Every structure is written in C-alpha cells, then in structure tokens.
C-alpha cells in the first residue's frame, strides 16, 4: 500500500500532504494527555505490522491493521500512522518522504471512517455482535485503503478500474486476515483489558 516516490504527480502529492497536515493538526489539538502512551504503542504496532508479509499472487502485500488502530484511537490514528510511516520511509525505504502525506491519508482516513462506523459496535454488551463487527471493521479498513490507493494512482498513467482490481485482489487475503486479527484483538481486550475499550 505504500506508494513509492516518483509515481504521483505534484498536485496529488500536495493535496495529500495538505489533507494529512490538517488532520494531524486537528487530532493533536484534540488529543488527551493520558491518551499519548496508547497512541505510541499503536503507532509501534503499525510500524511493525508492515513488516509481516503475506505471500499472494504476483505482488507482495503486508498487514496494515488500520482498522483496529482506528477503532482504538479515533482521530489520534492520524499522528500514529504518520509517525510510523515516516520511520518506515527513513529506515526501510518503504514508500517515501514526498509521498508521506498521500500514504498517511490513504491509511488513516479509513481508520477514522471505521472509528465512526464501529466505535459503538465493538464496545457493545453483546459479545457476538462485537466480534462480528470487529471482523467487518478490519476487513473494511483495508478495502477502503485499497480503493484510495487506486484513486491516487488514477491520476498517473494507469487506469482506475485496472489498478483497483489489482490492488483489491492482491489484498483480499490481507482483508480476511486483518478481519480475523481484529476479532482476536478486540476479543482479547474485552476479556483482559476492558478499560481500554471502556466497555
């Protein structure tokens, strides 16, 4: 999902950077003091998750975990993902510095969408409903990111439908895997650390 340097045109890069800067500014303003350690830990999770590789098809994909990060962090997902992506760019040459804004936006916006959609659901009293929604949340976050990557690439030479199809097919196993992982995480947190979810 990391778009490399030199692929996107300047307007796309600038738009992505501007949107990300606004969102990060807003979320830093909103961030509670006691929330910070949680954001740091989930940022580390995101940083490491991209190194876990899922072998599929002709391309190469990895875990993203933006669904669970979104549900647990809400708007703070933006700074968490920005920091993790910046370090991945610098240390591992994943993505790039100029594409940082676009990449952050592509992964953090679905996280926020999931936060608004499933925030209540995964905290529901009913265990079964909560876990089903956790699966949908993990699945949907990757799906949305895939669509956004395709949308960002549409302004380059490749056609939207073609890229979208490729990205989505390649990420189908990741979507399922992330759905399952989100179920495990939410299930675990509900049992062991319900205060994180404020159930």
């Amino acid at each position, binding site marked *: 999902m990391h778009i*490399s340097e030199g*692929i996107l045109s300047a307007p796309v890069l600038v738009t992505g950077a501007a949107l990300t800067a606004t969102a990060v500014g807003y979320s830093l303003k909103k*961030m509670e*003091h006691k929330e910070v350690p949680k954001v*740091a830990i989930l940022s580390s999770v995101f940083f490491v998750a991209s*190194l876990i590789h899922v072998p599929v098809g002709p*391309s190469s994909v990895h875990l993203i975990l933006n669904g669970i990060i979104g549900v647990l962090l809400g708007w703070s997902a933006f700074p968490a993902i920005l920091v993790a992506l910046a370090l991945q760019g610098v240390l591992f040459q994943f993505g790039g510095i100029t594409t940082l804004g676009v990449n952050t936006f592509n992964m953090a916006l679905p996280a926020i969408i999931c936060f608004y959609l499933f925030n209540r659901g995964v905290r529901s009293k009913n265990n079964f409903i909560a876990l089903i929604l956790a699966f949908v949340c993990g699945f949907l976050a990757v799906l949305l990111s895939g669509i956004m990557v395709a949308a960002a690439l549409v302004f380059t030479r490749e056609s939207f439908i073609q890229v979208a199809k490729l990205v989505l097919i390649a990420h189908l196993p990741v979507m399922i895997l992330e759905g399952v992982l989100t179920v495990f995480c939410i299930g675990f947190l509900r049992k*062991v650390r319900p205060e994180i979810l404020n159930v």
Partner: protein
Amino acid sequence: MKNKLYLILIFIFLIIIMINISVFAHKVSIFAYIEGDKIYTESYFSDGKKCVDSKIEVFDNQGNKLLEGLTNEEGAFSFETPPGDGYLKIVLTASMGHRAEYSISADELRGAAGFIKEEPEEPVSVISPETSLVNLKEIQSIIEDTLDEKLKPIMREIKKSQEDKISPTEIIGGIGYIIGIFGIVAYFLSRKR
C-alpha cells in the same frame, strides 16, 4: 499482576517473531549489471519475489527515454548497451505504485565497452606487433569472460545484501523513535495544562 504478566509475555513473543522473520515485504528493488555488450537487470520485491511483467524504462543522462520493456517470469530483462557514454538510469515500475531506480555510471559503461583503443602500445611492440594486436583482443575477451564468470557470485552477494536490509536493530530502533516522539508530544501536551 496477572494482566501485566500477560502483556509482558505477548511483548516477548512478538519480539521473537520479529527476529525470526527473515523475509520482509513491500519494496521493490532493481539490480543491473553489464556483461559483454548487454545489460542485464533483475527486479524483485524485498521478500525476494520476482517482479513479473513489470515495466522497465531506460533513460540517458538528459532524461530521454532510450528504450522500454517488460520483465519476464524470472523478473529479468536485458538489453543491448545503447551507444553513447553518458550514464544510464534504469527505472522499474511494478504494480500498485511501486517504483525503483538503478543507475549505471559512465565509467562502468566505458569499462565494459572495451578499452582497446586507449591501451598503450609500448608493451605490445616488444613482441611481434601484428599478431599481438589480434592476440590482445582475444586476451581481452577471454579476460572479460573469466571476470564475468568470477564476479557472478559477488554480484549475487551484493544483490542479496540489498535484499535483506532490515535488521532487528532497525526495528527496535524504530520502535524506540516512536516512543521518543510521543514522549515529546506528551511533554508539550502536559505543558499546555
């Protein structure tokens, strides 16, 4: 107490997993080398998977596109060394927004094209001059072939060292950075109060 123990165990478990994972995803690399009058390129994702059917473009130092092509099933693509002695930039564009570059310097290109003309004539003239010129060419091509052969493992080593660049040190270092950055954020947030 029990909960804390749980978290510590999970953390240790994660670190063990990370150290054992030797393949990492999500970056494409391209590697090129000159052999005779052809340039060979190999393209792969950072977990070692080959980039099949990916576009390769070759540019000269003014940014003009010289040629383009697709990689085969092995992720390889080769082309005749183009004329001119500027440096070459080889650009790989793989699916889903992946891109990588590799440059071949002018020196490397010249070296591979053969330097017979620049060879000083003196040592040659010691032996009979007419046959030695032919021999020189032959010797040169033999040396080149042998060198190519001998250098192959080294090339492969270089390629491999490019491949698995990510070490546990960097991962743990990265996590340290993240915690540090959010420590700074926490400091500023606490000052606001």
